[in-house]
Each structure stands twice: as C-alpha cells, then as structure tokens.
C-alpha cells in the first residue's frame, strides 16, 4: 500500500467507563486514587476519576496498528498528556501521515486524541510504523 504525507489516519475510538478503569487498574496494578475515588480526584483539582495515561497510550497504539494494517508493525509510539479525560468520556484518536522514509519503509504518524465533546485535546503523540 502506497502511503503519502498528509494522508489521514482513520480514527479509532474508545469510551472507558468506571468499570473499564477499575479493570485496567487491577491488571496493571495501578491503585492511584485519581482513577477511581471521586472525592480524592476532586481534592486533587480534577472533575472526577480520570483515565490512566497508559490507556491513552493504548488507544494511540491501536490507531497506529490499525493504520499499519495486517502484517504491519508499530515500532514506536509516544504521547504527551495535555488534559485529563474523565471516566465515561468518548476518546477519539486520529491523525495524519507526517513522514514517509522510502528507504527504510518507516512511516511516521502525527496523532491527536480528543475527548470531552470532541473539543478537548487530551493527548498529542507520534508513532512510527512499517506498513503491512
């Protein structure tokens, strides 16, 4: 498949609710109270329990993996947390192709994750993939 700079990365979405956060926290051994204790989260200046950084990373990775397609590989993924996302918010990762290295086949994706009503940038990141 030919990939061009500026080509869109099809969006992937996920709505992690309170149950999701509890399960994700349990399996990653993450007991930080900002992810499940509403009173504590508010005491920290948050509006409520927030999505784990690693869960944002998983959605970034999924967007990159989906773009790379069957047989493709994600070599790198990175993201910066810009704004918290609350439990129950719909998160959407989309992006564009930033760079294509014809020699190595490495494709760099510029990714962004929106939350809230689609108006909040929760994360910005990049991924490097080899296309399948």
């Amino acid at each position, binding site marked *: 498949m030919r990939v061009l700079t500026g080509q869109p990365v099809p969006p992937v979405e*996920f709505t*992690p609710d309170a149950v*999701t956060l509890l*399960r*994700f926290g349990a*399996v*990653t*051994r*993450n*007991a*930080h*109270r*900002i992810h499940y*204790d509403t009173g*504590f989260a508010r005491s*920290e*200046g948050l509006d409520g329990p927030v999505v*784990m*950084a*690693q*869960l944002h*990373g*998983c*959605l970034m*990775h*999924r967007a990159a993996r989906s773009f790379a397609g069957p047989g493709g*590989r*994600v*070599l*790198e*993924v*990175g*993201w*910066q*947390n810009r704004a*918290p996302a609350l439990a129950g918010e719909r998160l959407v990762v989309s992006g564009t192709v930033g760079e294509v290295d014809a020699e190595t086949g490495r494709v760099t994706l510029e990714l962004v994750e929106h939350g809230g009503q689609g108006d909040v940038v929760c*994360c910005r*990141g990049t991924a490097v993939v080899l296309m399948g």
Partner: protein
Amino acid sequence: MSAWEVAEERARAAIGRPEHRDLGVVRAEDAAEFARSAGETGPQLVDPGHPDFTVHPMYLVSLLRGAGGAGQDEFRPDGMYRDEVPGTDGLDVRLMAGGQEVRFTGEVRAGDRIRVRRVLTDVERKGSGTPFLLLTVEKTYTAERGTLVRVRERFIVR
C-alpha cells in the same frame, strides 16, 4: 522548604542512579485481560487460547508491578507506589503522568521473566503561574533473550 522543593532536591540527587525491578513472569491470561480492558476485541490479543495469541505490546509498559503485587507499606496515601515517582516518597505532593515514548525492540511472550532498569535522567521546573516539576525516567525492559522495550516516561509533580 515546601514538600515540592524537597521533592525537587531529592530528585536532582537521584539523577543517574539506576534502580532495578522484577516484574515477574508474563502470564497470557493477564495480558489478555489487559487487552480486553483497553478495548481490544481481536482474538489474537484477547484470547490466550488463540493459536496466534500475542501479548499486547503496551502491556509491559503499562505495568506498575508484576503479578506478585505489593505490600501495604509500599503505597503512598494517594494509592501510588512510594518508589514510582523519584523523590516523592512521604511527601504531600500531587502526581500525574506526563506521557511516554515507547520504542519496541523485541516481542514480549507469555512466560518471559521481565526485569526493568529505571533511571531518572532529568528534572525540570515548568509552568509560569503554578510551577510544577517534570521528571523524566528512562526504563529498559529485558527478558533473558534481550531487550524488549525502551521507554522514556514523564511524571508531573505539583
């Protein structure tokens, strides 16, 4: 000196000092539950019995501890591990994740025994109104056959 300043002083003193952590053996069932809780539906990620089952690449870098868990005395009052964010043990500071840069260098397999080397590499003061600390920790995840993942992780301390 405020708790925040103490954290900064301690963190600066810890720059470059490596720590080692044993995450134990990767279990297919845990990796599958991780994938399900991350919203994945592909059978190769969520069904440990699938012939092409693969440990989700983000599983290792999302783990704060291995299957053995931790003792009660290893937690801060906020639920974070005392040793997770350098310099903050025992201090009343607010902790947030800042993001990660993950480079995959090998495939994680069920049965792998994983060890992590962590090194604090940078401490920066950020923000103009309400300042915060930005700590950078570099982590290397290895199994017997070599390095599997390299990570640069950032923590925010307020």
